[in-house]
């Protein structure tokens, strides 16, 4: 399995706070990694750095042979557009754009828009009949599925999901998790921050953080039990 993500001695400091205090690990292409740990342990900071939303204080964060730490503002922008698909806990949809326009927004910043492709992406997440709805007219689960469609539309190398089910009820959580399982089966590489051990168990591996350090990296129970 080829290495897609390589993190070496990654540090991020906010003043005197060490959000990441020398983290190292690798992620193989097609892996689903669950990043776990208590609040303030550095999970989101790691996701932000790997996604090019933030820059590390030191260390390396190589994604698809690109060292994110060495990119300037323009390079980070292209990196995010071409290699990363984000899924946030708060969904982060533009409220005045319809579902299909939210998906097309990612296409627009990547290259050119293709409405048909955006529609197919929404149909894939089960929202073929909701494409012209504004986010306000969609349930939390539906909004998150729009976010998943948006994350996938540019065929990113890496999907970064920060607590994607944190704001969902159980039924919607199952729907969204089902989507992630499907993506993983198709070979997508997923790094997912979660507090939920049950979801963590579905991943190939769990990486646990505490106080900015990687304290435990284990294959998940699910993997051991042969779910994948």
């Amino acid at each position, binding site marked *: 399995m080829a290495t897609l993500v390589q993190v070496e001695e990654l540090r991020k400091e906010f003043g005197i706070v060490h959000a990441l205090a020398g983290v190292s690990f690798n992620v193989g292409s097609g892996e689903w990694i669950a990043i776990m740990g208590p609040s303030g342990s550095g999970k989101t900071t790691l996701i932000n750095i790997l996604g090019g939303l933030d820059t590390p204080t030191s260390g390396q964060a190589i994604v698809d042979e690109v060292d994110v730490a060495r990119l300037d*503002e323009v390079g980070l922008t292209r990196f*995010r*557009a071409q290699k*990363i698909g984000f899924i946030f806990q708060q969904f982060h949809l*533009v409220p*005045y*754009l319809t579902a299909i*326009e939210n998906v097309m927004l990612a296409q627009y*910043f990547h290259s050119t828009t293709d409405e048909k492709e955006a529609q197919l992406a929404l149909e894939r997440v089960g929202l073929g009949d909701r494409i012209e709805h504004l986010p306000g007219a969609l349930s939390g689960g539906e909004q998150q599925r729009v976010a998943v469609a948006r994350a996938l539309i540019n065929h990113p190398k890496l999907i970064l999901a920060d607590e994607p089910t944190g704001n969902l009820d159980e039924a919607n959580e199952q729907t969204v998790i089902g989507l992630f399982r499907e993506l993983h089966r198709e070979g997508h590489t997923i790094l997912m921050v979660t507090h939920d051990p049950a979801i963590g168990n579905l991943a190939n591996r769990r990486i646990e953080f505490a106080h900015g350090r990687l304290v435990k990296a284990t294959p998940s129970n699910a993997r051991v039990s042969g779910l994948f």
Partner: protein
Amino acid sequence: MFGRLLWKLLRGSGGRLAVAILALVSCAMVVSALLNLEFDIERKLTQEFRMLGANILISPSNAQITGSSPAELMSEREVWAAIQNLKDPNVVAAAPFLYVVESAQNRQVVVAGTTLEELPKLEPTWRMEGEWKSSQDQPTVCLVGRNVAQQLQLTVGSPLLLTYLGKSAQFKVVGIIDAGGAEDNQVFVELPEAQDLARLPGQISFAQLSVSGTTKSLSRYAARLASALPACDVKPIRQITEAEGDLLSRIRLLIVSMVVLISVLTALCVLGTMAALAMERRQDVGLMKALGGSIGRIVTLFMAEVGVLGAVGGFVGAILGVELSRWMGRRVFGQAISSRWEIFPLTIVLVVAVALAGALPLRLLGKVKPAVIFREQ
């Protein structure tokens, strides 16, 4: 997608943008009206100043124009030939004058021989009891000043016998002039009648012209006339031309100052609205950047939004401004200001520039850090 996004941005922020567009429309309306006024003020002022009477005087070189002595005279034919040769369409009125002191009812009166039909155009401020001379009238009609009419007890229709060195001529009073000046003591007859009485055929004391146009064009015309009449003094009447030029400069300065002031105030109003809008859009911008949107592309989107607001506000305001300028023209000058097509693009460009200047807070959105925005939530 750009157009679609732009439309959604405009629709999505309608309430907030309404304040900005109201300010821009108001700015465009006043600026358009003022620019219309600025373009037309010279013509309007010239018209107003022509109401004050003649603005070019042709006199014999070094002559003392006293109105009482024909000591220095000029050739009527030469002067008229020079005026006609120049063929300037801006000459509103021109009249020769021959002044002679004659007697009437044993009193001395100053008689001015002139072209009576030119007087209404040359002296539009004179008040008249009776009628100006018309082309149907006999050449032996006359106009008398208010004081002369009083002293000689003349009314409209009275006969008036004028005598000069033993030669007499009978005239009929058709109008009594109230000029509020020396003209109230004079009698106005047709030039040939005065020349005949005074035995000065073809001679005039001076000529007055009323010429429309700017102060500069007036000076140019006077210079051309002077070179055509080397034996005469041709001078713009300084008090009127200088007052016109001075007033024009002051009004122009006032208009430019108002346009600048209104533009700055509107930009500040737009700035306030856009600052609030920028705060609202921080999350959207953070998201757009997270999705790979470049600073240039995102800021261009917002600037285009503001540009559209400026263009729409400028267009609507320019149309309203035309009406405002017409109203202002009617109130100030008694007639509408002529609207100029150049005002539309000029107003729109100016208002778009004002809108973009006021959109400074939106430009600062380019500095938004997505990670910071997401952390705040």
